[in-house]
């Protein structure tokens, strides 16, 4: 269970078509608008500016009619025409254009602030919430899945907020505005335009529908190719060893061909839509020219200026419709993304009803404990138990007991059955057993990564459910099976154990953990930057660092989950020495994968299928001749 899942780097990076349909658009939108509340004033300005900006576009195309009919045509053939009216109109339109321009800039500028601000709020909230989620959540959710909420889903949200929504609003204003102007200029031509519009919308629906259907099958084909390539590349060395290249190529060709066929179909429809739409607008342009020409020539219903305006307006009519059909798909998609983000936010957080806290305290003249600062050298760690108005202090000793503990991860299959055990302060307790016997589970229960269903675990006599989780975990040092390092210097990584540790403390801890020797040989010593989970270090070195990290935290109780991977004997000896020094004077739980390291444990607990079947020290268990004996002599698999 503690095995970390591989980051889903190889998984399809976009899950666009997976669960693309939002479950509850209305609810999600309301919730999204909740984030926009604090930008109320700015949003009002944005709305006004969008209105002004789209209005300007319409006005500039519409004003061609009065311009031609009123200011140009009457002057044709006039000697020394009076151009002042004409000039005034042009200058007035310049003013309108400038306002529109400015409005356009202002709303875009404001939208940047609103979008980026909102995104940061959402991101931060999601992360903050994620930190409070129980380990169980991380067990059941792949990293790739969570990561994509920070990347794909947040990106979709950004595009929607900053582009799609303003563009849909501005497009609808344009469409409505243009429609009104058209209607005023000529209802007959408007009828023609509406007719064309219906054809266009049907075209969009036909092609869009086809295309998105094939996009779904394309996405499945990508997933298939991805899965196949991932599995084969993962086993590429085996492929070579068995000279399996030809078969691997043939199978890949099949998958590849399938992807090509689906992609081709999906893209054909998508790629044809755009030129068809553009040309439909030209068709409508041509039709208007013919009908318009006829109307001017034969009827009094239309002027030359109106036709000119109309021809320009049809073009600004079709563009927003194209845009809207694109954007609305996108908005629906990003709402689905927002839902996935909210899903994380709605996940119940780790419960913590504990009231007992861990504090430093020292005895006053009366021999009573009084709370003191963490830095106080005379202070000792105490449990502070609130009682009445005051508090009771209990010295931390490291006495851990399990009473009749039952535990199950999924609520069905018991992983631990009726476990009773005790660790006295300063004792070293080792857990032994086959994979799945429940060794790691026991330690996961002590620090409350999971809560037990039945029984009781006490720590210095206090039920651990009454201890605040942060205090409980602070009192337990853990060296995990897989060492995880963070991007940063070696020093930073050790300091993770105690954030306010001085450089001397860090170097001391490194020395104690036997890590100082290799650190000094790194190019920059303690300031060497580690990247990619410490990829530039060997397994052994990473373990040494994690021991140093635990050492600087200086916890009274230690949980060591030995690494399974083999390191060479010399390093193993160094690690063992480091561990031994770290273990001195502490209560230690060791999950053993190699029996050689636990012979000196005060108690060895042998687990089988969640039950304790043997307990005793090494000699006792060997004499007993049970499971431990079999494991020790290699007659049983141990891992």
């Amino acid at each position, binding site marked *: 269970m503690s095995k970390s899942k591989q980051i889903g780097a190889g998984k399809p990076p976009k899950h666009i078509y997976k669960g693309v349909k939002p479950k509850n658009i209305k609810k999600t939108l309301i919730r999204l608008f909740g984030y926009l509340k604090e930008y109320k004033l700015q949003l009002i300005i944005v709305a006004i500016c969008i209105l002004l900006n789209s209005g300007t576009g319409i006005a500039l195309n519409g004003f061609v009619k009065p311009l031609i009919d009123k200011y140009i045509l009457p002057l044709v053939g006039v000697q020394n025409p009076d151009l002042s009216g004409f000039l005034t109109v042009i200058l007035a339109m310049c003013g309108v254009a400038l306002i529109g321009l400015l409005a356009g800039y202002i709303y875009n500028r404001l939208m940047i602030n609103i979008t980026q*601000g909102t995104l940061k709020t959402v991101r931060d909230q999601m992360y903050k919430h994620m930190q409070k989620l129980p380990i169980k959540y991380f067990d059941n959710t792949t990293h790739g899945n969570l990561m994509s909420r920070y990347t794909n889903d947040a990106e979709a949200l950004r595009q929607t907020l900053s582009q799609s929504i303003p563009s849909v609003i501005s497009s609808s204003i344009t469409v409505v505005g243009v429609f009104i102007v058209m209607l005023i200029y000529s209802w007959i031509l408007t009828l023609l335009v509406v007719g064309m519009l219906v054809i266009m919308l049907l075209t969009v629906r036909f092609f869009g529908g086809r295309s998105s259907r094939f996009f779904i099958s394309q996405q499945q084909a990508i997933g298939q190719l991805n899965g196949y390539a991932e599995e084969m590349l993962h086993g590429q060395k085996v492929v070579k*060893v068995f000279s399996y*290249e030809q078969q691997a190529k043939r199978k890949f060709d099949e998958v590849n061909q399938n*992807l*090509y066929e689906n992609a081709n179909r999906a893209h054909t429809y998508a790629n044809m839509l755009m030129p*068809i739409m553009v040309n439909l607008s030209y068709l409508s342009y041509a039709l208007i020219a013919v009908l318009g*020409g006829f109307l001017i020539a034969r009827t009094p219903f239309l002027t030359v200026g109106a036709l000119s305006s109309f021809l*320009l307006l049809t073009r600004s009519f079709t563009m927003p419709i194209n845009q809207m059909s694109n954007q609305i798909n996108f908005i629906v998609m990003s709402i689905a993304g927002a839902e996935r983000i909210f899903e994380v936010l709605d996940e119940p957080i780790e419960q913590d009803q504990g009231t007992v806290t861990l504090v430093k305290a020292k005895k006053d003249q009366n021999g009573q404990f009084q709370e003191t600062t963490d830095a106080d050298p005379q202070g000792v760690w105490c449990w502070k138990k609130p009682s009445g108005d005051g508090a009771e202090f209990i010295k931390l000793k490291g006495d851990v007991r399990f009473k009749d503990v039952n535990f199950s991860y999924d609520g069905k299959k018991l992983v631990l059955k009726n476990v009773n055990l005790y660790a006295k302060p300063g004792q070293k307790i080792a857990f032994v057993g086959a994979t799945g016997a429940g060794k790691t589970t026991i330690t996961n229960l002590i620090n409350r990564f999971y809560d037990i269903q039945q029984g009781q675990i006490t720590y210095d006599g206090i039920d651990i459910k009454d201890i605040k989780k942060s205090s409980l975990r602070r009192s337990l040092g853990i060296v995990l099976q897989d060492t995880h390092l963070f991007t940063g210097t070696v020093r930073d990584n050790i300091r993770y154990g105690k954030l306010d540790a001085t450089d001397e403390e860090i170097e001391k801890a490194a020395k104690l953990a036997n890590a100082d020797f290799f650190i000094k040989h790194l190019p920059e010593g303690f300031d060497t930057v580690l990247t990619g*989970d410490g990829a530039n270090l060997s397994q052994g070195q990473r373990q040494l660092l994690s021991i140093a990290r635990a050492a600087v935290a200086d916890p009274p109780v230690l949980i060591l989950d030995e690494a399974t991977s083999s390191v060479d004997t010399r390093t193993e000896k160094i690690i063992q020495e480091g561990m031994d020094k770290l273990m001195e004077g502490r209560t230690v739980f060791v999950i053993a994968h190699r029996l050689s390291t636990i012979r000196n444990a005060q108690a060895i607990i042998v687990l089988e299928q969640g039950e304790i079947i043997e307990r005793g020290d090494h000699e006792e268990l*060997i004499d007993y001749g049970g499971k431990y004996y079999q494991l020790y002599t290699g007659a049983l698999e141990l891992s």
Partner: protein
Amino acid sequence: MFKLAKYFKNYAKIALTTPLFVIGEALLEVSIPFLMAKIIDVGVANKDINYILLTGLLMIGMAFLSLVCGAIAGKFGAWAATGLAKNIRQNMYYKIQDYAFSNIDKFSTASLITRLTTDVNIAQDTVQMSLRALIRAPIMLIAATSMAFNINSRLTLVFLCAIPFLGIALFTLIFIAFPKFLALFKKYDKLNSVVQENLIAIRTVKSFVREDYEIKKFQDASSDIMNYAKKAEKIVILNMPIMQFTVFGCILAISWFGGNQIIQGRMTTGQLTSFLSYIMQILMSLMIISMLFVNIIMTRAAANRILEVIDETPDITPPKNPVTEVADGSIEFENVSFSYKKNDNYVLSNINLKIEHGQTIGLIGGTGSSKSSLVQLIPRLYDVTKGRVLVGGVDVRDYDIKTLRDSVGIVLQKNVLFSGTIEENLRWGSKDATMDEIVRACKIAQAHDFITSFSDGYQTYLDQGGVNLSGGQRQRLCIARAILKNPKVLIFDDSTSAVDTNTDALIRKALKTELKDMTKIIIAQRVASIEDADKIIILDEGQIAGLGTHDELIKTNDIYKDVYFSQKNMGEQNE
């Protein structure tokens, strides 16, 4: 990026035909406003209905033709682009199949997958877009400008001012914004790595109670993104006012100058209207060119990542006149030295070794003593740096690679099973094996019993990597798979580490009696696994530190003695 063009191959014709239709479409589109001007100026002015209808029909016909051209161009564009993507993927995958182990070590699986899917998709999208826009936009630009020039050369001056202005402004924006976006992408990477590290190490975070510290780290990265994004976007949004300024400015300037010319009788209203239509066509084309430019720059990175995979030279190449038959399972190492990278320290130095056909060889040594490296040279998974390795008396580099690897089986330390049934997995060893042969191999590998204990037996489906099996069971299947190949040499690289000692002994016994004619090399941690080998090799830090039978070594070799007794003690102490 343009280097990828050669992978059009069988789609090259379609890719080349696409621009023809695009050009046709663009030219037709450009002619439409011109005809429209005629309708207004000739037809409407003379009230000539016939002229209006005829010209109108011509226009409608052209619009239809343009629609057909556009649709075909769209179809062909998609066809060529997805075909190109298919070819690129195939080339990449084939190339990867030709990689040597050392090439595989260089790329991570995850990175190869991203290149194979995401990067190819990016390239495909850009190609598809380019096939249309890259041709269409310049043609529209030129054709519309010359049509406009044809109508009224003096008014075209407005365009001649506007085009360079817009062009320069847009490209300046791109050049200012681009580095800012690159900086922003870095910040995104940073945020991703914070989240990723946090997810991997969530237990560490929780056990050190470092949630607040992690939140702070995230918020810093998150604020960085906000600030950098604001900086970059602030520049990008300038493109809208610039574009609108140009469009509005042109409309107004043309209205004014055009209006004046109409008044003076030097221009017609129809011409003015078509002029205004051309403005839109020209400026839109310019906008599209600048967008395309950004896209191509962005795609360059993806294209480079693709080419890296294709251009990688496999470190192991087949010989010109390959030997296609392996005489027997004898092996010889002559002064072999080996390092994984050029100029790196040797992990094996000066190895001399002779193994006769049919012998069983044990190989032991501590971690880092290069046991695996030594045996991987035999099936030529890596090439020696110095000296030579002979199998059946011939240098391994002279064999046809398939011949060699079919004759030298190896059970890798990190072995993999694939999704599929147990039988399908076993058939990797031999495609046409009979069921009897499969069962025999599984019996030798002590796998038959547990396989038949499953309700589906040999048809049991294994999930990826065989996660539903125990480590020991997986190892036994891998051994059976290798035995099925019936090679002349079979190498076990620590392949029974998860198998319990009793089963391990049974496997060794079966190997001895059932596969007499095979040369067997067994790498093991437990001395017991190799005790009865014909010859035992002790490796220490890349050199042979001992060679002989168990009885000889136990007397003469200190390392062997050490290991033997420490392991023996463990067992005996309790008896």
